[in-house]
């Protein structure tokens, strides 16, 4: 598939889109709540993924992880750009979850298994750390510094949170 992408094969690109667009758009929408803005960022990020595919190094991880990081960083860049109002950053998972649930006009049907259900499995501390790192785009060191939590604690909370999600994902 990577070769197809490198050759700019339209069919492979379509396949990539079908397989990953939902998850990647999810990564962006978690950080950017405005649907139009999120789609704009997604457009740019997906085009970029196809253009920079030569830089993808399979030995460093899965294609999806690479793409998700590009999307995540693009979204974070957007939230840190001037055009993005600061107030949006104060949103929480709940805002996102409710925002998603209340959204019905988009063509995409929202599955029953949502972030809310997954997040409900986490305890308060795990939720907070995940919210900062995965949803708001803080680095773990920033979380440690800003909220005065030891770095090791942040790391172990991230791990336990992802462990919970892992188990949950298995069920899915």
């Amino acid at each position: 598939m990577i070769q197809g992408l490198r050759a700019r094969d339209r069919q492979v690109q379509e396949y990539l889109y079908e397989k990953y667009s939902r998850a990647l758009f999810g990564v962006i929408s978690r950080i950017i709540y405005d649907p139009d803005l999120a789609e704009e960022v997604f457009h740019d990020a997906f085009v970029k993924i196809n253009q920079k595919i030569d830089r993808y190094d399979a030995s460093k991880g899965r294609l999806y992880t690479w793409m998700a990081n590009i999307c995540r960083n693009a979204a974070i860049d957007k939230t840190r750009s001037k055009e993005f109002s600061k107030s949006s950053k104060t949103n929480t998972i709940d805002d996102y979850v409710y925002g998603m649930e209340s959204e019905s006009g988009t063509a995409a049907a929202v599955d029953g298994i949502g972030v809310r259900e997954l997040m409900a499995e986490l305890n308060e501390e795990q939720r907070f750390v995940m919210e900062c790192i995965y949803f708001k785009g803080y680095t773990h060191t920033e979380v440690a510094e800003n909220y005065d939590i030891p770095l090791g604690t942040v790391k172990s909370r991230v791990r336990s949170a992802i462990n919970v999600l892992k188990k949950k994902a298995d069920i899915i």
Partner: protein
Amino acid sequence: MDIQNYISSGKLELFVLGDLNETEQQEVLSMARKYPEIQQEIDAIEAAMFAFDKASGKNPSPAVKDKIFASLEAAGPVMEQEDSPAQAEPVEKEVNLYPGINPWKPFAVAASLTALLAIGAAAYFAYSYFDAEERYAIALQQNAILADDIQSNQVKLNELDQSMERLLSGNFERVPMKGEGLPMQEDALVDVFWDRESREVLLSVNQLADLDENSDYQLWAIGADGPVGIGLVNAAEKLNLQAMQEAVEAQAFAITIEPKGGSESPTLEKLVVLGEIS
């Protein structure tokens, strides 16, 4: 290396989240190559994240897909857009994820501080330079004044030397002239030194009142043929030998006040001092 400890450190999760710096990433990658358990754990985390993203994500609107593929078509087959590489690569992005800690900031701060210090130093040295310059100029000026003083002192010394030599080498007799008993200046005192052989006359003013601009003191040698004017006396030059004209013969010397420039014959009413040769 305790593999389980490494796995449970939380590092692998951060690795998948793109939240490690380059060095840490390399470390995780080499650990993964060495220990299959670690690679398995990474795979599991990646799979979990994908599953989670997919489950929690949503499909973008079809319009976006059309737009994306239109952009890809337009971009052409091979295109390496070098916009901001920091946006494309998670590794480099990592650095930018710290909004408060721009990597250039310490350098900028250091550079600013250095610049400030340099400005301060420059100002200090400029001040020192101009200060030194000024003092140097003053010193030069004082030096010139001192040189002038020395010069004039040298001249005076030479004059004194000559006078002294003259006085010592000749056969001068001292003729004190006094104002005592005369109506003009009771306290006037002037000495005349006369060498009969060489006829030289020297004069030293001890006490003489200053005159107005239109008058001069004139020295007279009074001999058998009457008084002969032998020069004007500088009253201001006190206790210094003034060379006068020659006196051929004299029984007495006298000074009178005459109109500016002196007279042919003395104005006797204005006789100031008189000294007879003993």
